[in-house]
């Protein structure tokens, strides 16, 4: 190393000082300009949103591979050349979509106008004022299925309009039903377990019943469904939790019994929608509870499905009768930071109109929110299970409509998973859940 003595250059202090001052100044400026991140006032009450402004807008939604959405946008854009809609595609996973919308809200960016909101985000987005209250008369709400409109409502105000909805069905196999001696799909868990027992005597490799029991949002879907099917509810309409009610415990216990007796395979703890569908489609699983998308894939004739032609759909199994499925679907809301909200309202009304809804249903096989579409003959021809689906939606139950949904769903997942995996029994798990939900409900 050279023996040159270090020259005491003023530039070193300048550099380090410059760096330090920049950071500090930046911090101070940032802090003073908005009083800390995430803390600024939403600005006025929800009703003050300006719906007169018109102009170009954007739609932020997950990708559509059918090309139908692009068609809709073309139709709209041709009719409204000054109020064009641009599509902004969000990542595939719902969590990432929400994160993107959250980031934009934090940055108060006007990049997204119309948001494709999962049904469970309504309360959160409304309470945080990331979406604006919508004028009820701007949309044909009476044409939409009532239970779906509920998912877009918060504190009796409309914050999101249902675009598509979804409910789970029970998928059985005609050949296995015959073998088990049933003349139709089972309506209760008891019936189903009895059938599985008979079937497993002949074929011990057969996995009985499967649904989504991995530790993710799908588990909350299952739990809400089980509790509702047993006659209970996780939260009542005043926001008070009832997770430790006798009905709730019965609901959870039913599935726990299935695991204990081998009617539900252990690997179901790793199932999400796709894993369970694959097991059913490969012929290893006898009964599947899943969203209706599995129908088209299961009936494929190219050899990828071993159950094509043998599928039958019915309402999900319950305790004393057919059960209640949890509702899924997508709602459309308007970002609080966007411009041209007037155009956005009309665009949403366009999307939920019967014509578009039927078109969308035929192209994507997603369940439309518009009730009239379910009577259409073309739809019934294309999707023979639609009557059951409509019934399931009518009888469907919502997941908790709470503001801190993230915390609540995690608590529910922990409780359900610990019970199903055998770590805890149903009663202590649900009692603990009740305590946690109570703490969370108080904010």
């Amino acid at each position, binding site marked *: *190393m050279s023996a040159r003595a*270090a020259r005491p*250059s003023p530039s070193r202090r300048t550099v380090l000082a410059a760096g330090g001052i920049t950071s500090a100044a930046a911090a101070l400026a940032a802090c003073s300009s908005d009083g800390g991140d995430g803390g600024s006032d939403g600005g006025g009450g929800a009703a003050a949103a300006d719906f007169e402004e018109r102009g170009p807008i954007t739609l932020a939604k*997950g990708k559509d591979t059918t090309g139908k959405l692009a068609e809709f946008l073309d139709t709209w854009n041709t009719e409204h050349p000054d109020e064009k809609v641009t599509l902004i595609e969000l990542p595939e996973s719902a969590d990432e979509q929400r994160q993107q919308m959250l980031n934009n809200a*934090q940055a108060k960016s006007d990049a997204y106008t119309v948001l494709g909101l999962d049904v469970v985000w309504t309360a959160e987005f409304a309470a945080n004022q990331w979406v604006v209250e919508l004028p009820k008369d701007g949309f044909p709400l009476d044409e939409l299925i009532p239970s779906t409109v509920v998912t877009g409502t918060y504190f009796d105000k409309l914050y999101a309009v249902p675009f598509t909805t979804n409910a789970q069905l029970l998928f059985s196999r005609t050949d296995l039903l015959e073998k088990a001696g049933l003349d139709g799909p089972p309506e209760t868990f008891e019936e189903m377990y009895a059938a599985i027992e008979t079937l497993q005597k002949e074929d011990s490799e057969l996995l009985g019943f499967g649904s989504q029991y991995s530790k993710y949002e799908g588990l909350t879907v299952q739990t809400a469904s089980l509790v509702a099917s047993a006659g209970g509810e996780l939260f009542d309409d005043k926001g008070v939790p009832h997770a430790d009610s006798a009905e709730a415990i019965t609901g959870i216990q039913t599935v726990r019994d299935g695991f204990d007796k081998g009617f539900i395979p252990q690997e179901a703890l790793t199932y999400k929608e796709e894993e369970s569908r694959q097991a059913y489609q490969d012929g290893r699983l006898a009964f599947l509870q899943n969203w209706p998308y599995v129908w088209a894939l299961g009936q494929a004739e190219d050899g*990828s499905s071993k159950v094509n032609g043998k599928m039958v759909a019915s309402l999900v199994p319950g305790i004393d009768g057919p059960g209640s499925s949890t509702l899924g679907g997508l709602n459309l809301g308007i970002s609080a930071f966007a411009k041209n909200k007037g155009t956005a309202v009309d665009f949403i009304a366009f999307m939920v109109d019967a014509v578009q809804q039927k078109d969308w249903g035929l192209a994507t096989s997603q369940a439309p929110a518009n009730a009239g579409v379910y009577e259409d003959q073309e739809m019934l021809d294309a999707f023979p299970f639609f009557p059951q689906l409509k019934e399931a939606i009518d009888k469907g139950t919502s997941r908790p409509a709470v503001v801190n949904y993230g915390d609540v769903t995690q608590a529910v997942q922990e409780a359900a998973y610990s019970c199903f995996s055998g770590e805890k029994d149903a009663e202590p798990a649900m009692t603990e859940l009740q305590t946690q939900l109570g703490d969370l409900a108080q904010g």
Partner: protein
Amino acid sequence: MSATTPEIVTRDGTVLQAKKPKGRTAGSIVIALGMAFILVYCLAPFYWMIVSALRRPSEGRSTELIPSPISVENFVAVFDPSNHFARALLNSLVVAGGTTLLVLVLGVFGAYALARLDFRGKVLVMFLIVATSMFPVVTLVVPLLKLFSGGFEWFPVNWINTYQAMILPTISFALPLAVWNLNAFFRQLPVELEQAAMVDGTTRFGAFLRVILPLAAPGVFTTAIITFIAAWNEFLIALTMVNAPLMQTANVAISKFTGISQFDTPYGTKMAAGVIVTVPLIIMVLVFQRRIIGGLAAGSVK
């Protein structure tokens, strides 16, 4: 290493023959086995990725070791117009290439200063540089988004959907390793080399460019490759800063692939895209790896 027994010339001029190492063949076998192990280790999961991509789209989860029928549907689906994948690859190239170039320039300058120049606060500077690698990236995302979308008055730019919004943060993530790495390489080379060159009349920096840099070529090229790959694989910043389909990088495009339904994780297309995205990197390395060995042949203290 030479194949013949090496000759050593000691200081007083005598020529020695080094002993021929015993167990040479046994050593070669061990080395060969080792190479085979490395190949299998690195490529087995990659083989699985290729195989998964060559299945039919609805058979994503199959565990057959060789798919039958072999189907290139997934590869075709990757280049579906709605994915803008070719454009995304180009964007990735621009971002990764730009990042690597700038990182090398900044890194070489910075590492030179740290390795060869004496100044007070050197330890502090090195600590500051590495400290920036200690912060989880996810917490940087929202402030950066706000920064680059003009959310602060002292930085009045709107760089959303631009290359610089992706390149600048990525440079910051890659710089610390580059600076430290290059520093370590430069320090390995004795100062006498530059001094010898300077005796011939070149400047200090000229000596550095002409003598040290070529010798440190393995280090420089390795840093370049590591930086390029890190920038190529960057996801969070690219996702946050860009929402226009024509500006997104390949990783972001892959994250938006959908299957046939909203629950269908499109394993097939994502694996196919993974193969497509990895292959150029491997080709690039094959091209540049000669330079990595090449630096060695330049000779040394002679």
